[in-house]
């Protein structure tokens, strides 16, 4: 994945600042709560939502189980339609392929359709290093790019910004990148959108190369599908002569009919729309002299940790994700911590299970992500492909604290437990021992009861975090089991 996030601190540390940033929390709270309510309404309209969710899950699972077969079929269909397929094992390889393809056209500029895959591999930075400027054309991505910022949400990358901040970024930065913002720009949505439209139009008309991702790839025809709201993606797909699409290998669906399910569940889950405004599909190349669309088409299929994830029988369900971002919008942790704390282009609940699988759990932030959840289950409930995120979180916690077999770059290896959990491990063992011996538990309870007047109001060590903001419960004079014995199960009680 992108090197941009390397060296990120662990989640709790990164979240600490976000929690105390009032503007950020306000922006996030407002945005997530609005979309949350709308989504619930849009979903409630569908009497067959449960069936659609199950169908989406089954289609994805079936495809993942036979991924080898469908990938070969896709390659054949794309090639037959005039496109060229490239395979990239990791981010570096994918970036090199794309840079070489752009250089072969002689161009130094590309326009981009919003794409998670290209962010995941850090394509823009890699192209910049080769002297190629990549221009984001999605409004929110544009805001992030102009602000020299990082996206903090899958669907609304600039969710952490409010209108005033966006106005300032446009006024300050647009001239550096092309057409400047109009004089006296205000923060009304219409004016901001118009400023972006003018700025981008200049880019669309000039660019010879477009770079995109895709929401789906249909194996039977080699068709790529982009679902979007603004139409800027469609501009990038129809105007440039060369199109380079970078897509994760898990985006495949076998047939066009399968799209029927996802084109219903994706827009309702992500933007709470019954149907998304622009669904663009393209297959291979066109004769650009007579038709819209690219005359040269390259598909770069990236693995970047996906087949390793596929090898894990509990964790592989994360690959069903259609990036709708519904789980972010309902997540109480995301709402307070903000997207940047997750140290990845995939924030929120899905990020917490996807990043440590795609990247491994070696770094500080990746080892902390499985714990960035209270396991409340809201993400699972809302997910349109029924990914049991809490289940995978607990599974990854196990990997962090106990180690175990994993697949890394196609090889089976056995991970050692992560460092820094020794005290916890010892405590868990001791607790297990006490709980396996009711007598020991009882002795402990009695000791706690007898010494209860001496208990401190605040705790040392890891408990300090608790008692800093919450009062501790007081220990009762008598644990229940003593009462039960003393009163013979309450029979000695006054009735």
């Amino acid at each position: 994945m992108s090197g941009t996030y390397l060296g990120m601190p662990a989640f709790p540390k990164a979240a600490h600042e976000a929690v105390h940033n009032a503007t950020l929390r306000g922006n996030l709270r407002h945005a997530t709560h609005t979309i949350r309510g709308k989504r619930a309404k849009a979903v409630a309209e569908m009497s067959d939502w449960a069936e659609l969710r199950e169908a989406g899950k089954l289609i994805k699972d079936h495809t993942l189980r036979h991924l080898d077969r469908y990938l070969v079929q896709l390659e054949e269909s794309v090639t037959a339609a005039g496109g060229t397929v490239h395979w990239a094992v990791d981010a570096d390889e994918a970036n090199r392929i794309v840079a070489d393809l752009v250089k072969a056209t002689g161009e130094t500029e590309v326009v981009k359709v919003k794409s998670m895959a290209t962010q995941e591999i850090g394509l823009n930075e890699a192209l910049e290093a080769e002297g190629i400027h990549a221009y984001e054309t999605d409004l929110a991505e544009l805001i992030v790019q102009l602000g020299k910022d990082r996206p903090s949400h899958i669907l609304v990358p600039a969710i952490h910004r409010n209108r005033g901040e966006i106005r300032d970024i446009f006024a300050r930065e647009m001239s550096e990148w092309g057409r400047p913002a109009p004089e006296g720009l205000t923060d009304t949505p219409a004016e901001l959108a118009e400023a972006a439209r003018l700025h981008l139009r200049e880019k669309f008309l000039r660019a010879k190369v477009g770079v995109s991702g895709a929401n789906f790839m249909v194996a039977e025809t080699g068709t790529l599908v982009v679902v979007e709201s603004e139409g800027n993606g469609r501009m990038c797909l129809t105007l440039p002569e060369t199109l380079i699409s970078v897509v994760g290998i898990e985006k495949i669906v076998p047939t066009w009919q399968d799209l029927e399910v996802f084109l219903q569940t994706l827009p309702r889950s992500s933007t709470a729309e019954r149907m998304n405004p622009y669904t663009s599909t393209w297959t291979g190349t066109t004769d650009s002299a007579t038709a819209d669309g690219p005359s040269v088409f390259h598909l770069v299929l990236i693995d970047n940790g996906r087949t390793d994830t596929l090898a894990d029988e509990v964790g592989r369900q994360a690959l069903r994700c259609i990036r709708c971002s519904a789980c972010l919008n309902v997540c109480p942790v995301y709402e307070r911590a903000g997207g940047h704390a997750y140290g990845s282009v995939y924030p929120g609940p899905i990020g917490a299970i996807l990043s440590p699988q795609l990247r491994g759990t070696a770094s500080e932030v990746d080892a902390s992500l499985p714990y960035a959840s209270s396991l409340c289950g809201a993400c699972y409930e809302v997910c349109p492909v029924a990914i049991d995120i809490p289940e995978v979180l607990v599974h990854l916690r196990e990997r962090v604290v106990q180690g175990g077999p994993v697949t890394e770059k196609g090889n089976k290896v056995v991970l050692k437990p992560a460092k820094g959990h020794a005290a916890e491990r010892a405590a868990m063992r001791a607790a297990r021992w006490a709980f396996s011996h009711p007598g020991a538990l009882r002795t402990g309870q009695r000791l706690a009861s007898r010494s209860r007047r001496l208990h401190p109001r605040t705790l040392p060590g890891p408990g300090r975090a608790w008692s800093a903001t919450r009062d501790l419960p007081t220990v009762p004079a008598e644990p229940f089991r003593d009462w039960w014995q003393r009163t013979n199960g309450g029979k000695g009680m006054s009735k």
Partner: protein
Amino acid sequence: MRVALFLTCVNDTLYPETGRAVVKLLTRLGVDVDFPMGQTCCGQAHYNTGYRHEAEPLARKFSDVFREYEAIVTPSGSCGAMVRELYPRMGERARAEGRGDTLARTLAPVVPKTYELTEFLVDVLGVTDVGAYYPHKVTYHPTCHGLRGLGLGERPRRLLQAVKGLELVELPGADECCGFGGTFALKNADVSAAMGADKVRNAESTGAEVLCAADNSCLMHIGGTMARLRTGMRPVHIAEILASTEEEPTV
């Protein structure tokens, strides 16, 4: 009907009054309650923190202690969900690891017989009016594992609505997590505290005197935050409300 009370280790140690309330309530409803002394902990804290292998012996012990009873009742949505939802999964994982069916077969008998208290009252005993009296203004917080793990739905609210003297007021953002989450409260203390504070502010806005829930762990977190924020509200377990009568009121 002879049922076993699975009180949970947290309630046994810190909230014995909840256990006494369950005994009082069930006895009043004609149920013969036993408290098997061999019980300790269902293993949830271990399991959820990533120590599944440490949780397995606790699950086996749970099954040994409780398997002979007709029903197992627990005043905790969270521990109830552990047995019903996660014990089968532990069995499956053991099987996937090539350890055969032993664990799954050991745990299977207790899974369908384990009920959270409000489920037991409504589904098994078939009562919603338990003859309780509690003259207070109350708001109800549905805890996550009860809500999404067990699917308790309207059961707790229906029970509360039938309590004489009780005025039930809706909690804004009721379905949102309070931020406890077991070790989450320690590992991500800032986020946990922010979630708790928002929950308490929502509760305060209802004007209720009491916040009620079916899980003392969440109530410990919410109550600890309430005390720190000096709201004057009290956290009370639903069992204590349902056990309260005109003759013997719970404060």
